[in-house]
């Protein structure tokens, strides 16, 4: 296996977000989709090593072939819910290059021989999409009609079983996973839910080939990804880069840090804290030791004068407030965990406080219909590790960050 250092290094590079806006510009630049059959599309996705960009990073070709083989008329869904408050990339993609997403949705439909296609996105994005779909129909681009659905503005509304039940008309509520949506999802049909960025990559792979896709990113993790960089940076926004891009390059592309950084949250509110090391490659492999992963590309820069425990407690409080409310351990455990962390962050120490935070994080993990408790616990546990010195200081009633002890 190649190490991260030997692999082609990721860099800031525009693939998805490049080019003019609009259907004419899209056709002038990329042309129409080539006609491909199911096995060709699945083969290309496999050769390209394309993985999901919605957070879990699952190989796309495996999902495509599972749905294709599930039997029955399949349904494909493009997921642009983007409930994560620190993420803006799906909205940006829909605003600048929606045609790549819609091309990718048609490809996914062809790969799974689907009979219905849906696009699930925040309400504000729908009017423009509706107009675009009419234009594409007139131009004869879409073989399968696409139905639009409004995603409620909530953290869990983009979880795949929540997406399915929203389209089924029963609210954006996650479901038990004993029966997987690959077997029975929208209307009981085998269903493929794919993040919109994943679909846009598929649209480029279909045109330029798997070999071209492999020229970005690392050998293990090919291709580019969309990062939403925010926090203590001059120009917060969406940046495209190959996997393995040094953290410093991403921060620099966002205008650079506004002040010395203390740590960086990678992967979003379900992600993990990593040191603000400019050389740290943003890839699964390099982030794994920190219990983090690129996830859906969220990068939040924490300035040296902010308290990491305070920031994490704020996020944990938000996440506890966003539980769907169905599962006992989640609706009870997340608020308790967030409140316990808040006590630590606010320097209301009591004996065994850090151990209690960790106990609750382990208690809620894996005990919900969706992975919201797991993601929240991961964030909290990573904060306890990344801000270990701060934990000790807080237990003694001091704060390293806000009181300038650092």
């Amino acid at each position, binding site marked *: 296996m190649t190490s991260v250092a030997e692999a082609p290094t990721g860099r800031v590079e525009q693939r998805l977000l490049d080019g003019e806006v609009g259907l004419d510009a899209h056709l002038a630049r990329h042309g129409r989709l080539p006609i491909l059959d199911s096995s060709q599309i699945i083969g290309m996705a496999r050769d390209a090593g394309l993985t999901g960009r919605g957070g879990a990073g699952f190989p796309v070709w495996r999902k495509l072939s599972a749905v294709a083989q599930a039997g029955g008329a399949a349904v494909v869904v493009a997921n642009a819910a983007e409930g994560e408050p620190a993420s803006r990339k799906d909205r940006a993609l829909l605003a600048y290059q929606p045609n790549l997403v819609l091309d990718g949705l048609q490809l996914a439909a062809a790969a799974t021989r689907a009979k219905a296609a849906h696009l699930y996105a925040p309400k504000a994005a729908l009017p423009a999409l509706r107009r675009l779909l009419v234009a594409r129909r007139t131009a004869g681009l879409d073989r399968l009609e696409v139905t639009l659905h409004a995603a409620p503005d*909530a953290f*869990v509304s983009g979880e795949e079983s929540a997406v399915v039940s929203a389209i089924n008309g029963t609210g954006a*509520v996650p479901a038990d996973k004993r029966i997987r949506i690959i077997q029975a999802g929208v209307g009981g049909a085998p269903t493929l839910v794919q993040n919109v960025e994943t679909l846009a990559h598929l649209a480029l792979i279909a045109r330029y080939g798997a070999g071209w896709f492999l020229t970005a990113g690392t050998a293990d993790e090919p291709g580019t990804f969309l990062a939403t960089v925010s926090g203590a940076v001059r120009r917060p926004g969406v940046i495209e880069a190959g996997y393995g891009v040094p953290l410093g390059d991403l921060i620099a592309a966002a205008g650079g840090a506004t002040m010395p950084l203390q740590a960086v949250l990678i992967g979003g509110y379900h992600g993990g804290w990593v040191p603000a090391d400019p050389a740290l490659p943003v890839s699964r492999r390099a982030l794994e030791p920190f219990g983090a992963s690129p996830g859906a590309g969220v990068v939040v820069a924490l300035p040296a004068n902010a308290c990491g425990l305070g920031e994490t407690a704020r996020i944990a409080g938000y996440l506890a407030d966003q539980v769907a*409310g169905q599962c006992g351990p989640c*609706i009870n455990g997340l608020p308790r965990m967030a409140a316990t962390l808040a006590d630590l962050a606010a320097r209301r120490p009591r004996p065994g406080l850090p151990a209690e935070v960790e106990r609750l994080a382990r208690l809620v993990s894996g005990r919900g219909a969706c992975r919201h408790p797991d993601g929240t616990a991961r964030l909290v546990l990573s904060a306890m590790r990344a801000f270990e010195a701060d934990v000790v200081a807080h237990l003694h009633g001091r704060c390293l960050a806000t009181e300038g002890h650092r």
Partner: protein
Amino acid sequence: MTEALWYFARGSGVISLVLLTVVVALGIGSRSGKPAFGLPRFAVSMLHRNAALLAVVFLAGHIVSLLFDPYAQLRLVDFVLPFVGNYRPFWQGLGTLGFDLMIAIVVTSLLRNRIGARAWRAVHWLAYLSWPIALAHGLGTGSDNGTWWLWAISIACTAVVVVAVGWRLSTGFSRFPARADREVAARLRQPEAKQLEEVR
């Protein structure tokens, strides 16, 4: 002989009511999460089910014996269709209604893995209804409704259920009073009638 039948019919009806009372009380108690009436939770659940099945057995005895009873003059249709009987049709009809309800509950309970939790729970709520119906039927049809012992049994049954309901409503009922209710967050329900926007 007919005398014996008559007593058997009455006796089995009363026993069925008493068992039904036990079933209702245990059903309420099983929601507490605490060991109810000094029994572990699973025992409460088993007893609830077995007492219910036994109540149905006695109910069947009650009905079959009445079928052969020359005084009662019941026809087969009276066991299925309520309020069409010859003798005190209203009070007798309540008995038929209670019987129908209990059959529905037993059948759905035995098939609950097949029909799913939602349908089963919906029917099961009706179970609570069969108790007052059975009580009223007993007091209304029982030609002994003037006798002290039927009144005594009815009052005792009522007391048991009232105590169980009172316990259910008390703050000490749940083993985890601070536990948050499971309830789907409103923000996830589609805000507009249906947020589905179709493109034609």
